């Protein structure tokens, strides 16, 4: 067909227009503002960036976000993989379980916020159970335990997503391989090590990177656990951004958003290169 360029332009214009107006152009302005002082008048160079990187709240939030990703994402990958393998193993009855595990993803955080309070409050159900078992009650929301409540919540809500990706990866491994291994007398572990694991490698790279990037979106789970003003252990970048936003500390916010975007862009470009090389 002729006129590809023109046709593509017509198809893309509405969407690209919006993306330019709402994201790309103002993002350029965001980067620019990061180099100016709070009133946007005087050029201060990298000073704004330095003040963000030196800010103790920023360091806390960045460290917590990094810690969360380092702890939670491996757990997420492992748990969702085990679930996916179990579901495959009980075929064809696995469908009910698959639906069940996917459901939390659809549950709005707002609808379960009340339940989470009932569960994790000082006088809540978890502590009722702990006390009944003879253990000491735990301050789940106001102590370092909040971090683990957030990790649990994130796993509860997001394991289903990764499970679907793993299941798709498992479906891509030919049944013939397993049958051949069976004929050769391989046991379940050997089949897993020599067929399933290598077969899942491409999926593993992709699920890891997707999960890593999605880990930056954890704010909702933290908000569910502790609202807008949480314990220090789950004070995340989004909390800090909200804080600066409320104080109209826009130039700092711009510098911080630019830094975060830079870090993520590097990750995304690495991902693209990784997959191009894998081909």
């Amino acid at each position, binding site marked *: 067909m002729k006129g590809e360029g023109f046709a593509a332009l017509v198809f893309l214009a509405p*969407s690209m227009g*919006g*993306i330019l107006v*709402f994201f790309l152009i103002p993002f350029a302005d965001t980067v620019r503002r990061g180099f100016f002082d709070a009133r946007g008048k005087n050029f201060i160079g990298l000073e704004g960036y330095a003040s963000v990187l030196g800010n103790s709240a920023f360091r806390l939030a960045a460290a917590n976000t990094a810690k969360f990703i380092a702890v939670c994402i491996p757990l997420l990958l492992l748990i969702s993989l085990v679930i996916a393998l179990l579901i495959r193993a009980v075929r064809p009855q696995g469908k009910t379980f698959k639906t069940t595990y996917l459901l939390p993803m659809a549950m709005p955080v707002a609808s379960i916020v009340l339940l989470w309070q009932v569960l994790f409050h000082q006088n809540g159900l978890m502590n009722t159970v702990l006390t009944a078992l003879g253990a000491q009650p735990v301050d789940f929301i106001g102590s370092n335990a909040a971090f683990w409540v957030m990790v649990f919540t994130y796993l509860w809500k997001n394991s289903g997503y990764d499970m*679907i990706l793993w299941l798709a990866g498992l479906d891509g491994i030919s049944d013939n391989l397993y049958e051949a291994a069976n004929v050769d007398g391989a046991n379940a572990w050997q089949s897993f090590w020599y067929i399933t694991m290598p077969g899942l490698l491409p999926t593993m790279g992709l699920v890891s990177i997707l999960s890593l990037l999605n880990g930056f979106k954890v704010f909702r789970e933290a908000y569910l656990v502790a609202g807008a003003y949480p314990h220090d252990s789950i004070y995340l970048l989004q909390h800090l951004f909200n804080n600066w*936003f409320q104080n109209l500390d826009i130039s700092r916010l711009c510098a911080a958003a630019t830094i975060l975007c830079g870090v*993520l862009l590097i990750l995304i470009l690495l991902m693209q290169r990784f997959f191009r090389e894998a081909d």
Partner: protein
Amino acid sequence: MTGKSSYVRPRCGMIARFILLTAVALLVWWVLWFMFMGSLMSLEELNATIGPAMGTAEGSATWPLLPAWPTLQPLVELLLDTPQFFVMFWNSFKIVLPSVLGQLLLGAPAAWALSRIRFRGRKALTTVYIALMLMPFQVSMVPNYLVLDQLGLMDTLWAVILPFTFSAFPVFIMLKGFDAVPRTLLEAASIDGAGYFRTFFSIGLPLGLPGILSALVLGFLECWSAIEQPMTFIKDESLWPLSLYLPQIAADKLGLAMAASLMMLIPAVLVFLFGQKYLELGIQSTGIKE
């Protein structure tokens, strides 16, 4: 190994797997159970059982398997006597429906072009969409704010609707759906004299429907449960969606809070149940490398 033991052992393994799967599933089933039973409880019973966790009673919280005296009273009160709830409920729909409709109307042609029209810069442009899709709200909130402020749209529902409308995620999902449309079909249509628009409407849309539905389901769930965006861009409480109102609901309105939580959950669960196939499809398509 005797025939009997080799028969018994796989059975044991199977039972163990089912027990494990059920144990994990209980973490989800219990939540649903709590939500449904809780909204059938009277305020007195709620106060007596979970009141301690809400700060309205002494002692420690408990939870019965079934309500002692099931009642529809809190639900009825919420639906008939709480106009505030209706405002929030409609605010949620007023945000979700235009957002999802916009995602479809603007996103589908863009996805079609990125997927099936060969033009210069296609790869680079697709990378832009992917990068935008993967960025968390922290990155887009300032740019969004700068524009919304300039346009005077802060503190209106449009402040949430417009950024959602131009979200890159649904474009990516639909793009993956359109990738399944065979190019030979398009070439045949071209030979028959069909232009780009004819091809899009008569081949692209019908064959790309699964991808479009996936984008709709994921888009609905995302907008319906959105918290960060309305929290940042809407200060006026009369414009708040249900998702912002619920976390703030006062402990003394425990019965209402229970019923409202259920009403927040039901649309999402219904969309999930009817669209599960497309939801899974959508998730899978994020797992196909570019």
